[in-house]
C-alpha cells in the first residue's frame, strides 16, 4: 500500500497548529515515533517551553498480560504541568490505549489546563473515546499490520509498515 510522506504531514501539522500556539504552550512526545515527531514540531513551531517526552511503559493496560517492556526510557517533563496547555504528540493513533496511558502519566505530574492531541496519522478503529485535535492524514491500515514512524540517518522521518506484534 501507498504510505504517506511523513515530511509532508509534518509541514501540514505545523500549519494547522501554528495559530493556536502561545508562549505558554508545552509539547510532549510519546516514545519513540511521537518523540521524533514532537522534536521536529517543537522546533518548527518555535515553542519556548522545553520539550517533554513520555515512555508510557509504566502505564500500559496490558502489563499484566504481556509484562514490562524490556527497554523502558525515562520520561522527562521539564516544565510545570499544573495549569498548562499541553500538545500531546504521537505518530499513529489507533486504539487510543497509548493516549490513555499518556494522559494518566501526565496527571501524575500535575493537573494540566488542557491537553490537545496531535497525530501524524489516524488509522481509526478506536477502542476508547479519544479524539485528536490535529491530524496529518486519515489512513486505513490492514489488520495485523503496524504503521509507525522511523527516523533515517539524516534525520528524515518516514513511515514503515510491518507485520504487527500485539503492540497497539
Amino acid at each position, binding site marked *: 500500500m501507498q504510505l504517506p510522506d511523513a515530511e509532508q504531514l509534518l509541514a501540514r501539522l505545523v500549519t494547522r497548529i501554528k495559530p493556536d500556539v502561545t508562549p505558554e504552550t508545552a509539547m510532549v512526545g510519546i516514545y519513540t515515533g511521537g518523540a521524533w515527531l514532537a522534536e521536529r514540531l517543537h522546533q518548527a513551531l518555535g515553542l519556548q517551553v522545553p520539550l517533554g517526552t513520555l*515512555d508510557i*511503559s*509504566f*502505564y500500559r493496560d*496490558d*502489563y*499484566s*498480560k*504481556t*509484562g*514490562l517492556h*524490556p*527497554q*523502558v*526510557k*525515562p*520520561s*522527562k*517533563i521539564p516544565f510545570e*504541568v499544573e495549569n498548562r496547555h499541553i500538545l500531546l504528540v504521537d505518530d499513529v493513533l489507533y486504539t487510543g490505549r497509548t493516549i490513555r496511558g499518556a494522559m*494518566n*502519566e501526565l*496527571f*501524575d*505530574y*500535575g493537573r494540566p489546563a488542557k491537553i490537545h492531541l496531535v497525530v501524524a496519522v489516524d488509522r481509526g478503529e478506536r477502542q476508547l473515546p479519544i479524539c485528536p485535535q490535529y491530524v496529518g492524514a486519515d489512513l486505513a491500515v490492514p489488520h495485523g499490520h503496524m504503521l509507525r514512524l522511523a527516523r533515517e540517518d539524516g534525520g528524515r522521518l518516514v513511515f514503515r509498515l510491518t507485520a504487527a506484534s500485539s503492540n497497539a
Partner: protein
Amino acid sequence: MRNPQLDDKGGLQHLLTIEGLPREIITQILDTATSFVGVTDREVKKVPLLRGKSVFNLFFENSTRTRTTFEIAAKRLSADVINLNISTSSTAKGETLLDTVDNLTAMHADMFVVRHAQSGAAHMIARHVKSHVHVINAGDGRHAHPTQGLLDAYTIRHYKKDFTHLSVAIVGDVLHSRVARSLIHALTTLGTPDVRVIGPQTLLPMGVEALGVKVFHDMATGLRDVDAVVMLRLQHERMRGPLLPSAQEFYKIYGLTPEKLALAKPDAIVMHPGPMNRGVEIESSVADGAHAVILPQVTFGIAVRMAVMSILGGGGA
C-alpha cells in the same frame, strides 16, 4: 541444569541470586531502574503497575532498612504490602516455613520478599510456590543479597558509566558477606576487568579467586588506582570470635581513612551497604566526605527494587 530463577522463555521468574543471571537481565534491571529514579521526583511518586497485587515481606531475620526500602518500592508500584515479622509469629508456634508460605498464598499473595538466616531459604520457597507467585531473595544467610548487589552495580554505573575499564575494591569481612558475593557476581557478569577483595586471610573465603577477583591483604597495594571502594560492615558478633584480634587493630589496618583513600583514583567513589560502623571500618570524615555515595545508594536501592518487582510482576511475554 535449568536456572530456577528463569521461566521457560528465559524471562525472570524469581530473583534469588545474581550468580548465573544472564548479563542481559542484569542490564535490563539497571536500565529499568533508571526510569524509576525520575518517578520519585514527581508530584505523584507512584505508578500503577502492581495495582491490585499483594506483596508479602517475609522477614525471618531483622532488617529495618532493607524491609523499608522493599516496602516503599512496592507501594510506589501501587501494590498492597503486608509486613510479617516471622520471628515473632507462627514459626515461633512451630509452623514450618512452607506451611507459612502456603497459608499466605491462600490469602492471595502475588510476591514474597524473603529474608532468612538460612542460606537457600528463598530457593526453597521459589521451588514450592505456583507459577504466578514470584519470590525475591532479600538476603539468605551468607549466600546472596541480589538486590543489594544490583543497587551497588547501579550506583557504580551511575557515577562511572561503563564497567569495562573499572577497578573496584571490596574491603573487609568478605567471608560472612552475602553483599560482597552478590556484588562480585554482578561486576564480573557486567564485564568489570579488575575486581579486588581486600581483607585479612581469616575474613576472605577459601578459593575466592575462583570468582574472578584479585586478593589483597593490605590496603596500600589493594586500593591503588581503584575507581570505587566498597566498604563492608564488620559485624559485631564476628569481632569476639577468633578470626579478628580486635576492632581497633582492624581499623588500623583496614579502616578507610582519608590517607588510605588518597591511594585510589582522585575521583573514586566510596560505598557502604549500611549500617555503618563509624570508626570501625570507615572514618567519619570519609563517610561524610565528597567521595561518599552512601546515601545515593539508598535512594537508588528503591528504584532498583521497583525495577525487579515490575519485571517479575508482569504477565509472561
